[in-house]
């Protein structure tokens, strides 16, 4: 299977760099998969779980929003925050969600909509996390 180059960068570090087979990205307008030879695209990323497939192995990385760029040089994801599933502190994540719920009251108008949307994304990540933990 053809591979392509994939870089995952967050402001603080280069979180992933290497040749991969496939990357599934949670886009703002729906999830999409990137294979080698994908058409050039720039897409916004919503908070969610990104799956990297290399030689049949799956690696899940949590990204909290950002931007994906596919060009002939490969795929680059600029993530606001990137944490691999193994490193994530679940208790702290739950705490963040609780905090966001708490802060909802302070927002109004379109800002409230944005905050609710973001909270939903976070909750769906948590849901997926718990689902995988049970298996």
């Amino acid at each position, binding site marked *: 299977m053809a591979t392509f180059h994939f870089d995952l960068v967050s*402001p603080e570090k*280069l979180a992933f760099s290497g040749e991969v087979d496939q990357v599934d990205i949670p886009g703002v*307008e729906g999830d999409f998969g990137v294979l080698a030879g994908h058409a*050039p695209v*720039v*897409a916004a990323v919503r908070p969610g779980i990104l799956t990297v497939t290399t030689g049949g192995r799956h690696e899940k990385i949590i990204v909290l929003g950002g931007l994906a760029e596919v*060009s002939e040089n490969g795929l680059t994801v600029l993530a*606001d925050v990137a944490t691999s599933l193994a490193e994530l502190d679940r208790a702290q994540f739950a705490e963040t969600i609780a905090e966001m719920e708490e802060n909802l009251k302070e927002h109004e108008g379109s800002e409230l909509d944005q905050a609710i949307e973001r909270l939903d994304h976070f909750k769906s990540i948590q849901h997926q996390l718990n689902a995988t933990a049970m298996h």
Partner: protein
Amino acid sequence: MASLKDMRVRIASTKATQKITKAMQMVAASKLRRAQTAAEAARPYANKMSAVISNIASAAAGSPGAPVLLAGTGRDQVHLLLVCTGERGLSGAFNSSIVRLARERALALIAQGKEVKFFCVGRKGYEQLRRLFDKQIVEHMDLRSVRQLGFVNAEEIAKKVLVRFDNGEFDVCTLFYSQFKSVIAQVPTAQQIIPLVIEEGGANGSATSYEYEPEEDEILTRLLPRNLAVQIFRALLENNASFYGAQMSAMDNATRNAGEMIRKQTLVYNRTRQAQITKELIEIISGAEAV
């Protein structure tokens, strides 16, 4: 003339100072290494970000619906100077050279009849600017309690700047920080961040025509505030590395000067001691001869 005991005390005190400056130099050297790696780790993200932005923005900049952060408010009456300095001194001319650059820019703008506002990040810059521009400082922020500079710090600053921009408090925002060239060279730099200046060389990727998802405008409105935070973050990291570089060379100088001083003081001390011994000998000998 100081007595021998006084001289001994002085030499001991200079030696103690030298020990302190030596220790500070070594601490700065090890912190510099960490700050430098942090600055380098942040570079790919910042570079990619500006590449993508210049790609999209060069197309959007001309259109009438371009975001305000890119196109500007159309005026340049009120300037906000975002001055980033260190939290501590003992670092040579590091803080004052940033402040000097900002002050000269401010005075030039005032001379042109513009209005100037300051946003100080870091205690040292605030203290120095307060003397001249106390009323113009609209906000100041300390990063003193921050142990490890994180992106959240930059985001916080960017948010405050954006709130003021949305309220129409200023038209142009310029960021002042010290660029890290090497351990001995730190260059104070002014960078305009609102409206965004697109570098000419950055548009080399425009050969590929991208598909956008969602639309270009929407991506741009998402990216521009983000880019602001990224630029500030980069400036903070550069500043941090520059600070330790400046402190290291300042403390290296101080250590060398202390060594020089110790050498001179010891010379004087030994001469005086010998003179005294000679004097005592003469007294004893002439006393013996008189008998």
